[in-house]
């Protein structure tokens, strides 16, 4: 009898010990390079805001999945009227904001009306431009009427800028964000870290992590020691140049994914001699994309031939249109009456893709007779001089907004590109929701931009993530600005 007791006790003990080893970690520290200026995704363009809060703290009617697909979120389903102008959303019930307030159709109306109001400072106000009115049918049903059909409406509602907020807390979200998501905000130690904890009353599938800390690490030199010491377990946006130090370490996973960042050599299309098609085409021929990707992006990143991510389902491969060809470039310059070449400026913002890529591009263009003066600028200067005042010849920048080919049709945009045919395609696209038709129009749009050599299309910015090998569920790709932690867990 005693013996049995002992054996039983030993068995129980060993099981308990086994269980303990099986119980996985539930905390996570993520390194991010930039601190969000504030924590309200509906009031600022900074990617860092969404990279902390999207899908974690705040949710929208729809949401974007890790491959860029539209998924239901707070709206469990919807119907679209035959004319494509009326969207009726059926909302999840029993949803609460973190402050205890109930989420209902009134909050949807409030959030959408607030974002599109005259005094709105929503950085993506254009997402809501098509909305004519928002009506509350009952607490779980809301009807959105559009001025005209809009093919991308459901996608637009999945952006971080279109998340649902409560009238009680909307004004204080900058400091104390209150959403409906699976994590609630706990603490922001300014300059240091932002901490989220699991919300106890989440309506959807429970998350695996109890506590997540986003730690701000501005210097890429600190990434590797932070990983090696175990202080930080994941860098969703790692520095490609430091990869060599962790690549072969079995403790870490290196994940190369896609982004929506079209990295381009922007050209001021109205400024002579860039107003001549031959000159722009000559630049395209002069560019050696492989050399640029190798030098500016550690060999990572896919070449592009127009303004669309190769990861996008509507992508058309146009990289063969202007292969690297110095003779052809010189010939075109000669046709344009510039056989002796010319001088121009190249303004470079701070990211390394621009600063490193700029050096390579300057040397490539020198080979065909275009002498560039490189002018490094800060972001604030870039936005002021290049983007707003259009005082530039050439610049390098990555356009990271998803599905943003329409920027080429915007009046007064910094490319100074004006093509009624292209504008017509985009106008049609906006009114089309049929997938096949949209694909055709998007293909057409990509071809027009490539034919016109509006800018020098370089490559798609890669997403280089490095994290602990035992960590699962982090996004491989970055279809929108986000670090979705809803499926993240520790293995074992």
């Amino acid at each position, binding site marked *: 009898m005693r013996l049995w007791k002992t054996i039983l006790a030993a068995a129980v003990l060993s099981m308990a010990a086994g269980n303990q080893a099986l119980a996985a970690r539930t905390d996570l520290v993520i390194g991010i390079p930039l601190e969000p200026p504030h924590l309200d995704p509906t009031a600022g363009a900074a990617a860092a805001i969404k990279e902390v809060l999207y899908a974690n703290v705040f949710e929208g009617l729809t949401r974007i999945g890790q491959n860029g697909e539209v998924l239901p979120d707070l709206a469990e389903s919807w119907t679209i009227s035959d004319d494509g102008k009326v969207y009726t959303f059926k909302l999840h019930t029993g949803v609460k904001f973190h402050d205890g307030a109930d989420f209902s159709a009134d909050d949807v109306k409030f959030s959408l009306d607030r974002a599109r109001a005259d005094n709105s400072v929503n950085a*993506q106000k254009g997402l809501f431009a098509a909305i004519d009115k928002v009506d509350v049918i009952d607490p779980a049903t809301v009807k959105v009427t559009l001025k005209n059909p809009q093919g991308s409406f459901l996608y637009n509602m999945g952006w971080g800028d279109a998340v649902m907020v409560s009238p009680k807390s909307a004004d204080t979200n900058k400091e104390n964000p209150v959403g409906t998501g699976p994590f609630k905000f706990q603490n922001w130690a300014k*300059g*240091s870290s932002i901490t989220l904890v699991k919300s106890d009353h989440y309506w959807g599938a429970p998350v695996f992590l109890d506590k997540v800390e986003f730690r701000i690490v*501005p210097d890429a030199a600190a990434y590797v020691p932070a990983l090696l010491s175990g202080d930080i377990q994941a860098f969703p946006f790692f520095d490609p140049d430091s990869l060599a130090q962790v690549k072969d370490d079995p403790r870490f996973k290196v994940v190369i994914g896609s982004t929506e960042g079209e990295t381009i050599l922007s050209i001021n299309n109205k400024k002579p001699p860039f107003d001549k098609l031959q000159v722009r085409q000559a630049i395209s021929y002069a560019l050696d994309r492989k050399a640029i990707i190798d030098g500016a992006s550690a060999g990572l990143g896919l070449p592009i031939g127009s303004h669309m991510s190769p990861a996008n389902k509507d992508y058309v491969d146009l990289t063969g249109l202007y292969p690297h060809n110095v003779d052809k470039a010189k010939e075109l310059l000669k046709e344009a009456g510039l056989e002796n070449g010319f001088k121009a400026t190249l303004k470079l913002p701070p990211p390394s893709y621009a600063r490193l890529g700029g050096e390579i591009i300057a040397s490539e263009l020198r080979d065909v007779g275009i002498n560039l003066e490189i002018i490094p600028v800060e972001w604030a*200067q870039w936005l002021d001089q290049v983007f*707003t005042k259009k005082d530039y010849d050439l610049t390098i920048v990555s356009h990271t907004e998803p599905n943003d080919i329409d920027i080429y049709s915007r009046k007064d945009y910094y490319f100074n590109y004006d093509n009624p045919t292209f504008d017509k395609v985009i106008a049609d696209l906006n009114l089309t929701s049929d997938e096949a038709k949209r694909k055709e129009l998007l293909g057409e749009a990509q071809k027009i931009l490539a034919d016109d050599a509006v800018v020098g299309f370089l490559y798609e910015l890669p997403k280089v993530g490095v994290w602990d090998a035992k960590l699962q569920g982090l996004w491989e790709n970055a279809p929108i600005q986000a670090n979705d932690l809803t499926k993240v867990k520790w293995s074992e």
Partner: protein
Amino acid sequence: MTVYLLKRLAIALATLVLASIVVFAVLEILPGDPARLMLGMNASADQVELLRNQMGLNAPLLLRYLHWAGGLASLDFGRSYTYSVPVIDLVRERLAVSLPLALIALALSTLIAIPVGLYSASRRGRVGDTVAMGAAQLGVAVPNFWFALMLIYVFAVWLRLVPAGGFPGWGPGAWPALKSLLLPAVALALPQAAILARVTRSALIEVLNEDYIRTARAKGLPYRAVLWRHALRNAMIPVLTILGLQFAFLLAGTIIIENVFYLPGLGRLVFQAITQRDLIVVESVVMLLVAAVIAVNLLVDLSYAVVDPRLRSRP
């Protein structure tokens, strides 16, 4: 003494006013619009204008200067454009890191530098002096971010004694906070100590050549007593000057070390505010630093009077 003090105070005040004009003017010339930065590339010009109005950026220049300077005079430092919280709160949070860090680094640097300087000066030209000054030369030459990374690899990655970076705040207790400030303080202190040791040594050597040292020795005082009581005290003036400059640097000029250890210090606040064109933060923090430097200099001036009695009687 009183005249000396009043004169110093008047100069300090005039410097403050002048600095406020220069700081404000320089930042106004800087291209870049905080509203556009916040709203990004997809916002319309109207929206940017709206935000500019909300931020009060469209008021006339002189009015904004007077508003800001008037606020400063009544210790109101304004509100951050980007964080939309009072600047003083931001500064207070950052000082909780920067001030202890600067003090620890300064203490470390003094504790290393003064004995080394004394040792070297008293053994001038001998092996010990050569070795010490060689080490000091190395300390000045080694870039501190590299030295910091080496410290991280040894003490955080390899030995795992301290965290590789970050700052837990003073909430969880003093020890975790101090632990995270240890490596940065060492990284900051060593180059400062190297400079200070060299200054101490040369100041002492100069003093040791003075006639009164020979007299003191001649009247039979032991070498040690001469060194401590007569030489060191007289050599303190250049040492104090350097210490004052170092403290001002350690308070705000440590951006590189703050970045390597990702510490939320004052240097990073200013740097971030400049890139985001959070002008009010830059202006107010820079003014606070100017005030701090002036205060430190004033203290140094006063401490001259303490170590050098001749300054006390001078009008």
